[in-house]
């Protein structure tokens, strides 16, 4: 994988499963991962510093990817749907 490509791609955290009950997400098990533009959480990511947009993603079932809202600087990319059993999450940069 090339350097420029890596810059555009995600910081991926292969986290453990999360819990969800009654549509409310339980306390995230993992702490923030620092991405290129700001912290990345289980269901959201802040764009603190990048002029380009970011987009949070979650992975469920190994072959389903869920992409949240796009976020420019000062915004948060979030998942608007609760996905149980998230096996990984991260951020797509420069979308």
């Amino acid at each position, binding site marked *: 994988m090339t350097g420029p490509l890596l810059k555009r791609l995600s910081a991926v955290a292969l986290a453990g499963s999360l819990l969800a009950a009654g549509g409310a997400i339980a306390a995230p098990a993992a702490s923030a991962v620092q991405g290129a533009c700001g912290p990345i959480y289980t269901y*959201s990511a802040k764009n603190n510093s990048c002029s380009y947009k970011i987009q949070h993603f979650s992975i469920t079932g190994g072959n389903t990817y869920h992409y949240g809202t796009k976020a420019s600087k000062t915004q948060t990319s979030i998942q608007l749907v609760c996905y149980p059993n998230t096996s990984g999450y991260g951020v797509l940069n420069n979308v």
Partner: protein
Amino acid sequence: MVTDVKRAMAAALCVAALAGCGPSTDRAEPRGAETNDDAPEFTGPWAAEFVDAYQRAESQAHRLMLADGEISDLEYAAVRDDFSRCLADVGYSVTWHDRGGYSLQVGSDGASPDHVNEIVGDCSRSSLGDIDFLYEQTARNPQNLDEFAIMADCLVRAGVVDPSFTAEDYQEWFDNAEDEEPPYVVPGGRGQVAFGQCSTDPLGLFG
């Protein structure tokens, strides 16, 4: 694909003409002059973002969509359809969510996240560009008001943070990497639900 986009744009223009649409005060309206990068000189609350999007656009179709300073419903639908086709070409299936974002079935468990995201990123830049983002942002915040202020106000109106919560408080939270969530004063997921609603409709414009 470009032909499809042009057809959609032509349809949008026809709809606008038939509707007798006048210029909106919120649109990033272009004037005659052009910048060094051949972008129209946009005016209005979102002018800077339209200039940036125009300069970043990877296709003439996207530049044409941006040139009038607003993104129509049909243009928004056209780029999303184009994005879905781009991913369908590699066997991925997109499901759009009403409230924002989308899910993607990638077919097999073997694909690495970096591989999937490389494809998604390429399709996003070539098919969506900044069109979808500008459409959504100009709808949710037509006057391009301060993000921290409108989010703080919205969370207060939703009753999930203390009534004294200000834009400065929101920024303090935003700049703190340790806290995923603002300081909610309500239990369970109510704060999280409100945050999602405020993110998509901070001014309560969508009813």
